[in-house]
């Protein structure tokens, strides 16, 4: 089993205009920056992007926004991003906001074959508008539906040719769940390791979820051995 595609361009060549793509990342952590850059270069348009946030002006999804490649975002929190604001103001970007936990859970439901689920989050708020509600034991819940995508862009610390992935620190974030919920999951890895060199007990994303593994050409951060631990 060898899922490695050495060339970023080739790894995303079959993504067409109008595709829905999930992209991992939380703040500056765990952004599949090399895949996003390749998609910028490819110029694919009319994309629906499902993501926790929208990157910054010069990192991650911000680049796609600036390039006018995105039609719609399903997102939790875009933060301060001027490109985003301008696109929304001019009606050039559709937005669906999700509470962050609901976004994660909807993606999980999509990957786990569930039809929908009831969450207490957002009941009584505009996040629950036009959604079914229901109560059990005096507690109110909102019905939320699964999310899936054609592709998922995943960033991992290490990966092997079987597609087994390990993440580091809070760069894990939405990556493992998004890996489960796309027709084609493409993982860029900071380090490609040999099959058998990862401890099976410590793998975060089993290879079954990953179709393609690409070594990331460039990483915005210098890989480090260990985060600081205060004594």
């Amino acid at each position, binding site marked *: 089993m060898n899922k490695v595609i050495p060339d970023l361009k080739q790894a995303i060549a079959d993504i067409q205009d109008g595709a829905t793509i999930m992209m991992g990342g939380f703040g*500056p952590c765990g952004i599949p920056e090399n895949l996003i850059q390749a998609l910028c270069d490819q110029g694919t348009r009319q994309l629906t992007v499902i993501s926790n946030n929208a990157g910054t002006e010069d990192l991650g999804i911000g680049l796609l926004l600036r390039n006018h490649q995105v039609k719609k975002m399903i997102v939790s929190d875009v933060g301060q991003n001027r490109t985003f604001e301008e696109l929304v103001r001019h009606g050039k970007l559709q937005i669906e906001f999700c*509470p962050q936990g609901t976004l994660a859970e909807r993606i999980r439901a999509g990957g786990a074959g569930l039809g929908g689920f009831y*969450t207490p989050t957002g009941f*009584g708020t*505009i996040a629950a508008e036009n959604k079914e509600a229901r109560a059990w034991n005096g507690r109110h819940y909102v019905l939320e539906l699964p999310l899936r995508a054609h592709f998922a862009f995943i960033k991992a610390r290490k990966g092997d040719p079987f597609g087994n992935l390990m993440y580091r620190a809070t760069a*894990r974030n939405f990556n493992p769940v998004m890996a489960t919920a796309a027709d084609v999951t493409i993982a860029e890895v900071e380090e490609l390791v040999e099959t058998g060199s990862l401890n099976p007990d410590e793998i975060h994303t089993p290879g079954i979820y990953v179709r393609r593994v690409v070594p990331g050409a460039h990483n915005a951060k*210098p890989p480090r051995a260990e985060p*600081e631990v205060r004594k």
Partner: protein
Amino acid sequence: MSKHQRELIARRAAWEIQNGFYVNLGPGIPALAARFVPEGVEAVLVSESGVQGFGPLHHEHKGDRDLVDAANEPVALTPGASLFSSVDAYAMIRGGHLDLCIVGGFQVDERGNLANWMLPGRMVHGIGGVMDLACGAKRVVVAMEHRTPAKKPKILRNCTLPLTGLGVVHRVITELAVIDVTPQGLVLREVAAEVSVDEVCRETEAGLRVDKDLKIIQV
């Protein structure tokens, strides 16, 4: 709002953190509270970014790009830390495993409704984790200024801004008072030193019952 007053609120909010608690602190004043956790209290900070057991960086450490808190600020792990995904972070948050969540607030009302994510006339940048936190933690404490910058009350009969959560707030801590949400309405538990009950009531739109054991805020 002076820096001093924000710090006063944070200091009082820090007293909510008990030994053994797992705690989430929202950005702003709540995050400040981490600095004032009482001596001898061992609590674990949990962030929706996917970490439990962290704290501020040593100032000589420039941070690790892979490790941030929910405000995207670099942090340091503390001994006993563990890391997890966003799905797991929110399962934890929504599932009632946090002992305490301290959040900021734009408005709180008599039934414990909370508005703290959307201001009129400002572009919405998203919802983030605050709706999950507000409805998931065992105890939700709002730490905020008592009035808006325009000196309007923020503790209201009914919230007028879009809500974050319905009936989720247990306690509100401001520079003037500590107020609990009870089934019988709001109860004034503590007032700031040199502040009168009358003044608190004047600055509060909602009705307040005064605890017969009313205390002075100790910070």
